[in-house]
């Protein structure tokens, strides 16, 4: 019995003997939960592109914050607000090519962020940390921020669940059901922005979109209801964190990227596994009745 446990030791020992690794696991699990909630609605509604834009758009905010010695989280939050304003303005004014305009906006913000960071003498280190995250990115104090973010994101989800689901089917449906699409769209963007602000420190802004989308997309493949999708997303997110951190420890890999790669890989794995089910679904349709009674 004991020898069997010893075999499993590499699976838990790094965490049991290193507080910083336990912290990282806790932090990335919180990230997984936050991103499962927000990501579910992003995937349902097809907001991945804008989610990516928001993720890149917060970089100048973070860069400026670092330059002034302010916690990056605050810079990210301000950057998120600015980005959302930009996205909202563009979508309202530029109907046809809002896609292009949003793309330009976030690329511009990304370039601006790199420029600002290049003024610092520790440019390479700083920009690496912003884009790819760091293992020690979330200290014990930062966990408090994450819990705040979790509460806010969960709160938004509870309040706006119905309009969000309606909007993922059709904006018009939400409108004619009596919900203001403008308001709830803005609320959804705010939720995504908050999720990014709460998650970027560990996995970096370049990859945080992966945590937002991959576990939720996996949930979409497996679940039949939104609640199950969210739960599945959480499980996959937490598992990805665990496996990613373990791999980064044992094989000296970048931690944030390992977590995100695991999440994406799991999606691919599940996608391949469920191919037969998806095919079967199309073949085994119940026959249409002659009469509708």
């Amino acid at each position, binding site marked *: 019995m004991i020898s069997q446990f010893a075999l499993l030791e590499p699976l838990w020992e*790094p965490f049991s*003997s*290193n*507080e*910083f*690794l336990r912290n990282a696991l806790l932090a990335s699990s919180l990230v997984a939960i936050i991103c499962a909630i927000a990501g579910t609605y992003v995937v349902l509604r097809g907001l991945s592109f804008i989610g990516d834009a928001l993720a890149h758009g917060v970089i100048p905010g973070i860069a400026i914050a*670092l*330059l*002034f*010695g*302010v916690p990056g989280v605050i810079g990210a939050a301000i950057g998120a607000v600015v980005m959302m304003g930009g996205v909202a303005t563009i979508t309202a004014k530029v109907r046809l090519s809002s896609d292009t305009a949003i793309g330009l906006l976030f690329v511009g913000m990304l370039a601006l962020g790199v420029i600002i960071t*290049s003024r*610092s*003498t*520790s*440019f*390479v*280190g*700083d920009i*690496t*940390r912003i884009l790819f995250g*760091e*293992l*020690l990115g979330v*200290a014990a104090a930062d966990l408090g921020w994450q819990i705040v973010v979790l509460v806010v994101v969960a709160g938004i989800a509870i309040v706006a669940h119905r309009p969000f689901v309606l909007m993922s089917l059709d904006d018009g449906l939400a409108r004619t059901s009596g919900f203001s699409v403008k308001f709830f769209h803005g609320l959804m963007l705010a939720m995504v922005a908050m999720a990014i602000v709460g998650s970027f420190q560990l996995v970096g802004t370049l990859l945080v979109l992966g945590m937002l989308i991959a576990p939720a997309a996996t949930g979409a493949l497996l679940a039949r209801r939104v609640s199950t999708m969210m739960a599945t997303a959480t499980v996959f997110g937490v598992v990805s964190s665990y496996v990613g*951190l373990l791999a*980064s*420890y044992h*094989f*000296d*890999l970048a*931690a944030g990227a390992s977590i995100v790669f695991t999440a994406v*890989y799991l999606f*691919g*794995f599940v996608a*391949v*596994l469920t*191919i*037969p089910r998806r*095919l079967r679904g199309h073949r085994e349709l119940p026959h249409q009745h002659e009469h509708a009674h």
Partner: protein
Amino acid sequence: MTTTRHARTAALFASLSLAALGLSCSNDNAAPSNPAAGTAVTADSGVALAAPAPELPTVVVTYSVLAAVVSELVEGSANVVTLIPDGQDPHDFAPSAKDLETINNAALVVANGLDLEEGLDEALANAQQAGVNVFYVADHVTVLDIVDVNDHSDHGHVHRGADASHSDEDHGDEHDHSQDPHVWLSPHTVREALPALAKAASDALNVDLAAAQLALDNELAALDTELLSLFSAIDNCQLVTGHNELGYFVNRYGCTVVAAIISSTSTNAEASARNTEFVIDVIKTHSAKVIFTSLGTNPKTAEQVAKEADAQLVTISTHFLGTSNDYVAFMRTLGTTIATSLS
């Protein structure tokens, strides 16, 4: 899609996954091994300078030159592990999970300070809070200000042992980049830190290091004398370097750096067009014939400047031991390379 095609897709997916795993796992950063001293090289997370003896405590040193000094001091009483692999810029080095573990379990961590190891700031601060002994060399020496050679500004003045450690939690960019961190490039400066270092080490390891300390001190003194006489024979010792790293060296041995391709002591600032032009001018004015480049100088920029200024490029090793066995050999090589090239 039939079952066969589905099976094929799954197989393709599986083999791609294995390939990806294989690629990422096979990344062995083998640091250059040192045949003369019979050193053993362990993969990535720390180069051991001698075959590690199992029962001894660990002393972690951030970069190899400093580790060479520390090894002589604590030899036999501890295993010395170098964190930053040779060839990697200390500014950019980000510790892996295993590195963090090594730091947290060390009996003593010896670091340079003055933000040389910027990426380790937070890790070391956390370690200190958790009770690990961290020693910053720059806390115990006469720190020189950076002289911005390319701007003809007046000489930086000198102050003693400023608190070089970055012990606060704030990870903001309040770095005091007016102080030169390259303290290891003068044996005299290293000697300054030796008493405090020896005390820290003997406290942390609970051994008497008096003998080792004396031997090392003598070595450093002899080396210092050697270099002094070497450079006293050179009149008008004027250097052009890749970046401004030789502050302590030239201060001690009576030379001056007249221009640097990159104008701050950090390797991250890019060579601007105007600066490059200035450097070429200076080289021509002083009839300098050699540009000394090292780790961090962009080779393409250096070649371009050398070509236009009709000067020769000489590579010096300033940040890692390279082929030298120990600190004395390292500094001797550095000194003789410079001296020979100038005559």
